[in-house]
């Protein structure tokens, strides 16, 4: 409600925008409140051991640690793969390619970003798991590594095209000013363009992280879905929060504690993402000083 005291005088159109904003706020809040309400019973019955427990067995105990670790690992891997590739691609496309080529590459990226998630899922099961297994000579190809790789491929075009937009939207005057000082294109890109587009890039990466964190079907099909706290080995099967939800939620629908536990997982994901997003924004703030 505080919002109203901060906004500048609103005209009718402004009210419409404000209303839209409240619709958005309402959706997010409703989801959040729903998750909190639905996970209260499990938190009450399990307490902290819901997050620290390693054992998930319906009817006995609900420990979410394997899923939490899994989600973090898979997302971390995806970002680890994506970041260098997407940034290089964005830099090349925005700073070096002539406009006509740039538009073509952008086009390809948008097409790639347009490949529906279910198709990545199909491709993942049919090719990626086998590829990973054969290339690394593993016992089996359904691993964290595979899931991370698949997610990386999935979010790459989105991260790339959005960070490219951010880079490209930096006014060319700044580039000229830097180049007139004798900086090379690369130096210009790194020292002038990159810092200025950092919020946009962080935004793109956060979007990618979110996508990776929340992806259900594709991950579920290649991660192995085994509830266990992984050691330091990335080449074993495991479980993520969304894949756990995907496997069990429909079955557990409205069925007491099991359902509450799954909603608790959803809430946990919510919190983890909130922390990551918050740190992202903190990072931007740091860099701006």
């Amino acid at each position, binding site marked *: 409600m505080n919002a109203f005291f901060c906004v500048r005088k609103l005209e009718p159109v402004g009210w419409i925008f404000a209303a839209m904003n409240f619709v958005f706020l309402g959706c997010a809040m409703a989801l959040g409140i729903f998750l909190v309400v639905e996970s209260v019973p499990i938190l009450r019955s399990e307490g902290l051991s819901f997050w620290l427990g390693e054992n998930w*067995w*319906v*009817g006995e105990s609900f420990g979410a640690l394997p899923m939490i670790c899994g989600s973090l690992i898979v997302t971390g891997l995806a970002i680890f793969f994506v970041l260098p590739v997407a940034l290089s691609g964005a830099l090349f496309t925005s700073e070096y390619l002539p406009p006509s080529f740039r538009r073509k590459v952008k086009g390809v990226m948008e097409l790639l970003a347009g490949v529906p998630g279910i198709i990545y899922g199909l491709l993942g*099961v*049919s090719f990626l*798991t*086998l590829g990973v*297994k054969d290339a690394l000579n593993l*016992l*089996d*190809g*359904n691993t964290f590594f595979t899931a991370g790789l698949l997610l990386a491929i999935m979010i790459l075009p989105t991260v790339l095209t959005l960070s490219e937009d951010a880079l490209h939207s930096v006014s060319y005057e700044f580039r000229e000013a830097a180049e007139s000082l004798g900086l090379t294109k690369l130096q210009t890109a790194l020292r002038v363009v990159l810092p200025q587009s950092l919020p946009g890039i962080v935004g793109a990466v956060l979007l990618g992280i979110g996508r990776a964190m929340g992806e259900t079907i594709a991950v*579920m*099909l290649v991660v*192995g*879905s*085994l509830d266990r706290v992984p050691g330091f080995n990335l080449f074993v*099967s495991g479980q993520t929060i969304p894949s756990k939800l995907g*496997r*069990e939620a*429909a*079955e*557990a*629908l*409205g*069925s*007491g504690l099991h359902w509450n536990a799954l909603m608790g997982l959803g809430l946990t994901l919510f919190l983890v993402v909130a922390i990551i997003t918050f740190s992202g924004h903190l990072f931007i703030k740091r860099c701006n000083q």
Partner: protein
Amino acid sequence: DTGSRIQIVGSTTVLPVASRSAQKFMESSSSRILVNAGGSGVGIHSVVGGRADIGMASREISLDESNRFEKSHLKIHPVGLDAVACVVSSEIYQAGVQQLTARQIAGIYLGEIRNWKEVGGPNKKIVVVDKERHRGTRHVFMEYVFGNASQRTPGTLLVTGSNNEEQAKIAQSDSAIGMLSFNWINEDVKAVSLLDHGKEIMPTWESVRQGSYPIVRKLNFITAGNPKGEVKAFIDFVKGPEGQKIVEESGYIPIENP
């Protein structure tokens, strides 16, 4: 002109039967039958909530469910039988693992047996493929192997959901073991015979029909209370000769006495 609308929701295993039967049924009826996937749980839940007329389930109603939904008077209408085989990758099958005892399978799933050579196969680690805990396939399989439908299996390496998913994973691996409906057995994924007290039970339709194959489950339609009108007509249709032919075409076994 549209007659009544029948909603069918639930298990993807039963879906082919329902979908095909509905198509056939609608040729001679004015009612519209909508068939949708969702899983056995959603099927039962929807029937209880009145959002579906018929739920499809590839498993029995669990104790928990029957307690909670007691008021709804859920009625079960079996429409077919499915047999579940213990399957292995074709490489393993060729290398000699063509029959297993329940005890051996239990050992593998418990993680006590980790290498195929311990059961007479090649020197390869076993990729143990399990199914989601609520799957009907797993229920009957574990019931046979351990005598406990929700047995824990610490030896598991992968958990899968649908038959296709499991089939793909076993086929992709060259040392996997798992459980599958008969319908998904092919040259990449071979079913092993079960050794029971020295007696070999072949995983064939024949032995299922004779009643000697131990791992079978019912495919069920579920209604709240006794079905009436068009719903009843449809269930009867599926249970009738035409429907049972469709059940057979879909890769399942017709029920004994229609």
